[in-house]
């Protein structure tokens, strides 16, 4: 994958439940992914369900952790701690 030529912009929302193990792992995994692709622009919002449960209710997100892809391909969602990186990369078309 070559840099610069096709720079993409992503808007993501990560739902976590405080410091629950899977939520911690999900944060780490997402950080790694972002670090691996500096050629793209990522905008990430982290929603802690313990703090903002109404956002999850509103969005109908009940499984945590979960990553909502707002841009591009709006509406897509990836459930789990994101440890299967190839799934995430495929969904994000990285």
């Amino acid at each position, binding site marked *: 994958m070559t840099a610069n030529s096709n720079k993409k912009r992503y808007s993501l929302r990560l739902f976590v439940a405080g410091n629950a193990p899977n939520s911690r792992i999900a944060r780490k995994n997402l950080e790694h992914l972002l670090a691996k692709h500096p050629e793209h622009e990522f905008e990430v919002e982290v929603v802690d369900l313990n703090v903002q449960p109404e956002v*999850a209710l509103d969005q*109908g*997100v009940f499984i945590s952790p979960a990553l909502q892809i707002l841009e591009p391909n709006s509406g897509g969602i*990836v459930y789990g701690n994101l440890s299967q990186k190839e799934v995430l990369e495929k969904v994000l078309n990285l």
Partner: protein
Amino acid sequence: MVTQTLKTPTKIRGLDEILNGGVPTGGLTLLNGGPGAGKTLFGLEFLMRGAQQGIPGILLTFEEHEDALHHYATTFGWDIVELENRGFLSIIRARFDPEGFLSGDFDLGGILAILRHKIETLAAKQVVIDAPDVFLRLLDNRVKERAELYKLINWLHDQKLTTLMTVKADGGDIARSDYEPLDYLADCIIQLDQRVIEQVTTRRVRVSKYRGSAHGRNEYPFAMTDQGIWIIPITETQLSHVALGEAFPTGVAGLDVQLSGGYLRASCNLVTGASGTGKTTFAASFARTSTANGKRVFYINFEESPDSMVSCMLSPGIDLRPALENGSLRFLSVMPEAQGIEEHLIQAFRGIEELKPDIVIVDAISACRRMGSRNSAFDYLLRLIDHCKTKGITSLLTNLTDSVKETQEITGIDLSSMIDTVIILRNVEQHGQFERELSVLKARGRQHSNKVHEFQITNQGVSLLNSGVEAAHDR
């Protein structure tokens, strides 16, 4: 440790009697049963009844049927939306995007966060968790499924919430399912069962476990009525029956003398005979005379519609119209095969509750076999007669026998111990014509005639001819 089990009444009709007061307060109750057994409905009604009394509750469902819940509620006349708006009830449908991708492990953390939020918002005291297995199965790992289930139950326990949890189990047996440990964790287990016996669906409820409490151990029939679940009261011991009381005139001229005054209050009386012997005319005579004496009569008719019955009875001079008009006579006309025995019983009980009759007539009990099986008919009649005897209501049953052998087979449904008086009607061919004969086979606790009496049905009603058969021969 808790020394005494605190209970929360469910207010589901009949359930608290079986549970000796209600479900364990702050404890876990499992609602276990196959698909369509009514688990979710039990949960919904529990919360709804609580909400109506100002106890806030939450239903968390993992099934795809939030709309179905509202539909149920509308059918039963429950205004869920209003209770939701007032903050006494909240329904959370935990759904998953079927197009979503899976990448690694996940857990209940998010659901618990949302549940906690709702519980705090409503100050909820009771919770129903509907079909958690749907969520757990997504984990696709037995060990993790159990770990998450424990986490959920422990969390609920720590919140001191009175919890009902529905669990699907094959064959109604948790022990054989994936969630066997639930059996040990639960404080109370309610088993629901729906089965088809001879093409008629019946529903049963049973309490298989109640930690620290006595409970009814039988299976009880229940039904979904237009007001919610109704569990049929327990068959009580005969000790609770009201003692037989004063005599009610039978409306058949000459019969009262033979029965020392008539049918006794709180007694069960059977008029049996072949087709065309006049059973319904006896029943109608009793109904007319009783209503004329200011009594109320509830007439359960499995044979014909009220209109047809009323017009048929005009020819023997029995006019039931005034009683119908002033409300002292009420009919329940229904085809036996139209519904299961639960629905039949509930219709009858509801009619009794509304009218508060002195007399219940069932015409004819032989038709009850069409409710499914001989056993269903027995169940229905036993519970109905028992209910009447407990309430001090006099009952009159008619029974169609198909042959001359009627004396050997009084009811065909083995209710003899419940029946106090048996009157047999016969058509006998004599002197080239049919004559009507009556004999009293049994009249518990009273003097009665042992003779065979001739009787006639004229446009003035039914009357016994003055004397017994011997005298009639002399005529």
